């Protein structure tokens, strides 16, 4: 019993509570960034992080185990070259965790304000080939101030409850779940009786499609609809007539 207790105590003490890295090993992350016209995007910052949750041992405080603590290290950094491609060498994380990267991070000195940031999550879900992670090409879309203008020409006594669904200015690509990367921002607005139009200003990605869902209410739901609207590419306006 005494022996078992000592072993448990020793295990708690030596439990790793931070990220660790393999000796004598380096990994390489390759990728490329382009604009929406598929032209190479140079001088874009790419930062690579390792992150994991670890048990924080709290000796002598029952029940001995502390909570999970997150440890995140910046393990590599680079920029895209004239061909829009990047190669970043990183140490190889040893303990369980994820490798993620941020393209065009807001904190970076090279941050391009009018372009989206991309979070590349769980890069380690890709199968490395000879210690190389090869990422697909990413589009760095432009951020625009867009306006939604909804007008109605009839049924002034109805209330219209509308919801705008549009792409966020920060994109995430999760390599562990490549199918489910369609997160979007939501905006809600109400067009009251006697109001003929509504203007909603929001930031989104240029040339993106927004989804408008609305309910026309007049002593109950009279009409319910969902439509996709494209922007006027010169004015970045989304217009709809109810």
């Amino acid at each position: 019993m005494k022996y078992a207790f000592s072993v448990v105590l020793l295990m708690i003490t030596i439990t790793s509570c931070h990220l660790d890295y393999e000796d004598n090993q380096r990994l390489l992350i390759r990728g490329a960034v382009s604009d929406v016209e598929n032209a190479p995007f140079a001088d874009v910052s790419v930062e690579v992080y390792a992150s994991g949750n670890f048990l924080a041992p709290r000796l002598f405080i029952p029940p001995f185990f502390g909570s999970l603590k997150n440890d995140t290290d910046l393990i590599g950094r680079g920029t895209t070259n004239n061909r829009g491609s990047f190669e970043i060498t990183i140490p190889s994380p040893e303990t369980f965790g994820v490798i993620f990267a941020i393209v065009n991070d807001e904190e970076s000195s090279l941050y391009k304000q009018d372009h989206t940031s991309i979070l590349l999550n769980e890069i380690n879900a890709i199968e490395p080939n000879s210690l190389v992670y090869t990422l697909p090409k990413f589009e760095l879309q432009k951020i625009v101030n867009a306006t939604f203008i909804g007008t109605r020409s009839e049924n002034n006594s109805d209330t219209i409850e509308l919801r705008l669904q549009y792409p966020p200015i920060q994109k995430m690509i999760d390599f562990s779940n490549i199918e489910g990367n369609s997160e979007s921002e939501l905006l809600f607005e109400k067009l009251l009786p006697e109001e003929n139009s509504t203007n909603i200003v929001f930031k989104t990605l240029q040339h993106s499609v927004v989804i408008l869902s609305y309910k026309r209410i007049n002593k109950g739901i009279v009409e319910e609809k969902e439509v996709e609207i494209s922007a006027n590419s010169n004015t970045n306006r989304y217009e709809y007539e109810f």
Partner: protein
Amino acid sequence: MSMSFKHIVVLLAFSMTSHMMFSQQKERTSSYYDVLGEMGVSFALPLAYGQNFLSEAYTTDIGFSLRGMVRVDKNWLLGANFGYFGAEVSKVEQVGNMDNTSILHLHALVAHSFLKVESNLGVRSGIGPGYAKYQHRLDRARFKDTAFSLLAFIEVSYRLGKTVGLLLNFEHYWDFLAIDSAPSQNNFFRRTQIFSPSIGLKFYIL
């Protein structure tokens, strides 16, 4: 009893040989007594060169070298060399992010003295195999790269007193690292060359 010519020649030859052997023995005893060994400590300014990660993606800091040698023959010495210097990553893209890196070398040495070991001016050259450790720190993590290493050196020393002297040392390390990396980076990560001039003090063990 008369001695023949043959006997006289043998006696003379024996006498001369004994005299020569005794003189040599006397000289050896005196040399051994004068300098049995030496220790040198010097501050180094290491410079990495070539197309490798250390020269292209790091800046090397000041370091030191510690060498101890024991005389095993008139002009030959055996010993060990310990070298240490720090380095900072200058191009994160090429090697990854590290807070700092320490580079340690430990070598066994055989050295030859071109002048008399006990003379005031000393010129030595040596070579030896050893081990190198590139110790990295990143936040709270520590990890390392290891290497088989070769060291060659030329050292000029001047003896100021019986036990102390000045030392000018030129060391060269070839490190053959065991780093696994992308095939395109193997040459970049697997070999480094470091030239390390240093200046310091030498202590003679009598």
